[in-house]
């Protein structure tokens, strides 16, 4: 019964959100075409929108430097899958990196712990764009010195996976590490940890068996920040590495509002699903609704 209610609530939220995204896109389209007569422009755009949404199969998008008209529906599938493979593997990568590193750091001595934290603090204030610059320069530097091209930094038509996944997951990984580590430190002040220590269990064992389990719940409930960061990172990475993924498509679709709307909804749906599942897990584990 409770799950049924939860699902219904989420379903209504989903419908509302999709409509609202539509309104935002419509508003931007109408403010572009007629700045002074906003209401009239809005009505006009809504009519056009409705028309093109009914004929979803025939929607077109302008691709490339020559503005070639291509049907959206068949064009969208490939980059969509590609980008989501990158996103999900970057998510797993960031998660693994964050937890592994915080596990390692927790086992270090307090002085080393502080040092690692300071380093990450410095790293954190470097924007992702500069990370991408650095990676590109580094690869070219290696190529110049040794004549070995590890990975092609500027992708052409073929798909590259390793480099974008790594670059996308660096900054979220650092953020996740900080979050995890903070949560671990909070958790390790609790009495059950002290009790376990008094029983003579080792630090690593306590962390693995007791603390991490409790920390993961906190991480799950914060995961939507992580996704948001991943998405905005991938947007820039795809643009700078010249990867023909979904976000590149989104960027080219900016000129055609109806296609842009369809792309946005397609982007939104899986995220909503994931957030719903994670939220559900967090509620199930803690027994209370997390306030976002």
């Amino acid at each position: 019964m409770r799950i049924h209610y939860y699902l219904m609530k989420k379903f209504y939220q989903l419908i509302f959100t999709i409509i609202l995204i539509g309104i935002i896109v419509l508003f931007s389209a109408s403010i572009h075409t007629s700045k002074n007569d906003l209401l009239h422009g809005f009505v006009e755009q809504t009519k056009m929108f409705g028309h093109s949404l009914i004929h979803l199969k025939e929607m077109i998008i302008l691709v490339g430097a020559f503005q070639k008209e291509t049907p959206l529906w068949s064009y969208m599938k490939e980059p969509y899958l590609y980008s989501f493979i990158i996103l999900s593997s970057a998510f797993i990568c960031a998660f693994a990196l964050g937890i592994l590193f915080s596990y390692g750091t927790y086992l270090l001595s307090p002085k080393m712990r502080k040092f690692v934290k300071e380093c990450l603090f410095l790293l954190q204030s470097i924007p992702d764009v500069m990370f991408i610059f650095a990676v590109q320069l580094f690869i070219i530097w290696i190529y110049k010195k040794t004549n070995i091209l590890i990975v092609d930094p500027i992708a052409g038509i073929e798909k590259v996976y390793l480099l974008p996944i790594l670059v996308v997951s660096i900054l979220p990984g650092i953020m996740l590490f900080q979050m995890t580590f903070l949560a671990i430190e909070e958790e390790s002040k609790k009495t059950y940890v002290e009790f376990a220590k008094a029983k003579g269990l080792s630090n690593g064992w306590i962390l693995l068996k007791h603390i991490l389990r409790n920390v993961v719940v906190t991480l799950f409930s914060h995961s939507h920040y992580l996704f948001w960061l991943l998405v905005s990172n991938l947007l820039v990475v795809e643009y700078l590495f010249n990867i023909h993924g979904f976000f590149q498509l989104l960027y080219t679709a900016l000129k055609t509002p109806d296609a842009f709307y369809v792309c946005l909804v397609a982007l939104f749906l899986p995220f909503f699903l994931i957030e719903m599942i994670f939220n559900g897990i967090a509620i199930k584990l803690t027994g209370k609704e997390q306030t976002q």
Partner: protein
Amino acid sequence: MKKSWKRIPFLISILFLVGLIAFSFLYTYGLKEHIKAPPTFLYDENGNIAKSLPFPPSLDYPFGVDRQGKNTFWSVIDGARYTILIGLSVSFLRVVLGIGFGIFYGMYLKKMRSFLTTFERAFRFIPAILLVMLFFEVNLFSDATKGFSYIASIIFWLTVVALPSLIHVVGNEVSHFSKEDFITASRAMGATKIRVIQKHVIPFLRSRALLMIVQQMISTLLLLVHLGVFGVFVGGSRLFCYDPVNCRKVPITNEWSALIGAKYQELMLDQWIVFGPSIAFILTLLACHVMKRMLEGTEEKVVIPNAKQTPSIDIKQLKRSDFIFVEAVNSKNVIR
């Protein structure tokens, strides 16, 4: 304990930002005429041409000279005031409006919570940079693509983009805060909602406002870098045509993100041209992060235990004869 805004790292970083802005104004309105433009060629000691533009970084030109013969260091200084002031004004506006609407949302609109949450989610799921790119071309105040009105309209859009989520956060905080016991008490004694807002909510939020401004500043600066990469030049732009067909947008101010975005092609040729503005950006962000950390007060001290423990080797060397055992019978006698 000292108040966070009196600590030295905080003061240093705020001095850095203010100094950068002041220096930037000083350069544009005073120093500019007195500084010589770099020469077109560098000569070696025999008078032969050693190098033509662009020049790599040297003692005379700390960030190098770019292809147009502009000293990158002075370009960065010139652009500082645009970037930092845009960032500051956007974050200030965001926080002021966010707190204003947030109080209203938290105190009065309790019934509409679920609807507004959905609204906030719609905004959250579209990446902020895409939202800005949807709107930035529309100049609200006039039709120019440069000058003050253009910057003002960009500031407006940058502010609006983040407002829903900020209002949501502040509103939730306010509605949590208004369930505290002392507020219930003062409501019971007959205080109106406005009175509660004046006496309790605003002082509570005022202490958080500075932290929020710094946080928003960081996110605005990151957004600016991304916008620069995508060719949205915040300081204004104009079309530059090589020939009647090939036109592209070039920035008209030395705003940092525009410097990075416009010079991105140079990365593979002469890296240092991008380095200058990047370093400036990283330093500014670092200053903001330091301020944020000071304000959060999370700079917790790692306690290193001073007490000397007996090393375990010493423990193993102890023998039974090292201890004096009290007779159990004796102690029983004492108790009796």
